């Protein structure tokens, strides 16, 4: 339930609630929709929350609906009282129009815990500080090298038998494994790319070059996922990350003080091409995510 804060979403400006003596009440139209079972979240949650404590609205509701629909309403309300209170992210996603069940799946993404996000922020802060301390360089190489690895690590930690505690239950569920993977990948990308973007803003002196991590990040993430059915959920991202580090070391040595090739315009083009090709490959192997058998994992 969205809690009493949800009542602000029902304010008079939206025409969905009214006031009496300074207290908010659910609008008559919403009560009628509630009784018919047609009131949608988040207004539904706000109504649920409010009805628990407001005798007046309960009385209006009792006069509004037909007895069968009303019984269903009370049953639903009873169920809502046990329902978990959505966290900040889940509530925010729902307010942006994401269906509540998808928001719940996103919120259950294993790495989207505060501890992991704090670790990502700490790594980015350290990297940005180190980059700013070396002002002589024309390229924030350390930051650009590290930033694409964070989403790869996040996605790797979000799916698979090793790190997802509910993997075995999820893999035998009717929800397509690829869909779950995509939901979690988007959650991780949304969080990590956002943090990377904020870190880029802390490096204004480098202009657009500070955002040259984005295409490599998408390419590495897509490539790691596409290789997972063949190499496994641990080896695939580890190899991709290792290849990226090796490529960068070679590029830095060759650049001799100039911008390393992966962050130049041609390098970005290659990254974009790899991202597209890896995405196509990933789509081609999507059914392989539907079974719980990856290389490197015994069946029992």
């Amino acid at each position, binding site marked *: 339930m969205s809690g009493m804060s949800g009542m602000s979403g029902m304010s008079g400006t939206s025409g969905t609630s009214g006031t009496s003596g300074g207290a908010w009440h659910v609008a008559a139209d919403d009560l009628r929709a509630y009784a018919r079972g047609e009131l949608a979240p988040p207004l539904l949650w706000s109504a649920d929350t409010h009805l628990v404590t407001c005798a007046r609205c309960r009385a209006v509701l009792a006069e509004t609906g037909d007895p069968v629909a009303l019984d269903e309403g009370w049953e639903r309300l009873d*169920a809502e009282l046990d329902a978990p209170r959505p966290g900040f992210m889940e509530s925010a996603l729902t307010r942006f129009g994401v269906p509540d069940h998808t928001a719940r799946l996103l919120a259950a993404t294993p790495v989207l815990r505060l501890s992991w996000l704090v670790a990502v922020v700490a790594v980015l802060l350290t990297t940005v500080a180190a980059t700013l301390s070396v002002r002589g360089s024309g390229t924030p190489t350390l930051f650009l090298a590290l930033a694409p690895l964070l989403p790869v690590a996040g996605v790797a930690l979000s799916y698979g038998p090793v790190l997802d505690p509910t993997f075995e239950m999820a893999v035998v569920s009717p929800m397509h494994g690829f869909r779950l993977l995509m939901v979690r990948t988007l959650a991780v990308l949304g969080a990590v790319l956002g943090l990377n973007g904020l870190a880029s803003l802390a490096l204004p002196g480098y202009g657009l070059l500070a955002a040259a991590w984005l295409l490599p990040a998408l390419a590495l993430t897509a490539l790691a996922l596409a290789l997972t059915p063949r190499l496994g959920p641990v080896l695939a991202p580890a190899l991709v990350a290792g290849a990226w580090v090796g490529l960068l070391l070679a590029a830095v040595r060759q650049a001799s003080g100039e911008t390393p090739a992966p962050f130049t315009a041609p390098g970005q083009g290659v990254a974009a091409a790899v991202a597209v090709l890896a995405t196509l490959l990933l789509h081609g192997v999507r059914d392989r995510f539907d079974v719980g058998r990856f290389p490197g994992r*015994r069946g029992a």
Partner: protein
Amino acid sequence: MIPTVSASGLRLAHGGVRALDDVSLRLGEGVTGLLGPNGAGKTTLLRVLATALPPDRGALTVLGHDPSGPAGRQEVRRALGYLPQTPGFHPDFTSFAFVDHVAILKEMTDRAARHREVRRVLDAVDLRDVRGTRIRRLSGGMRQRVALAAALVGDPGFLVLDEPTVGLDPEQRMRFRELIATAGEGRTVLLSTHQTEDVAVLCNRVVVMAAGRVRFEGTPAELTARAAGRVWSSAERDPGARACWRTGTGAFRNVGDPPGGAELVEPTLEDGYLLTLDAPAVVETTS
């Protein structure tokens, strides 16, 4: 028995070891026990039947659907409840939130209907008082019941339970048995267990596996009957016995081919199981 689940010639190898070696079986309505020693292939078989692992070879039909293709697999999963050997949880989730999450994975997108179902299954496993409690605060037995509730979401026609009573104390085990017995009414349940007592109390059919093969398939009474005339009591350990152990009275219970003049005793399911494994074993313990 009208088979609801049938497997024929299932084979699966892991790293050169045949975890399943030409396994064929048929399951019907009610609770079927799956017995076998460690490494017998029980968990692998359960994972194959639950569509978590595809077999290398063999045919499988679950409730009329063939899970070898994506469409059939989807249909099987819609009719499946699965409790893995070590169910994983998001420890910060409450019981309600966890089962709700599983219900979403089972394609229940309507929030009100889903929450009604979550309440129903939590009530069914007698966890209504801890619906709002975080899983990390629950005892092992309660966590197992949360996992069973998750398996029961959507009223599945085929329930696969992998050693659900392991690690439970005797009282919790008894309560869990009651839940499984109730769950077995009107659906097919496959219960993997080390405890012959579970099978004796709960199951109308039993399958014994060893070394990736099915060694026995029948009723518990038929398994027990295998040991008729092959269990005897003696004051000293009988070296000719396939298995022997010291009972609470101090006498030895021997299983195998009895010597002439042996004091035969009534066989149990455990005796039949030990003889079916056909592996020489000497166990000294009290029972």
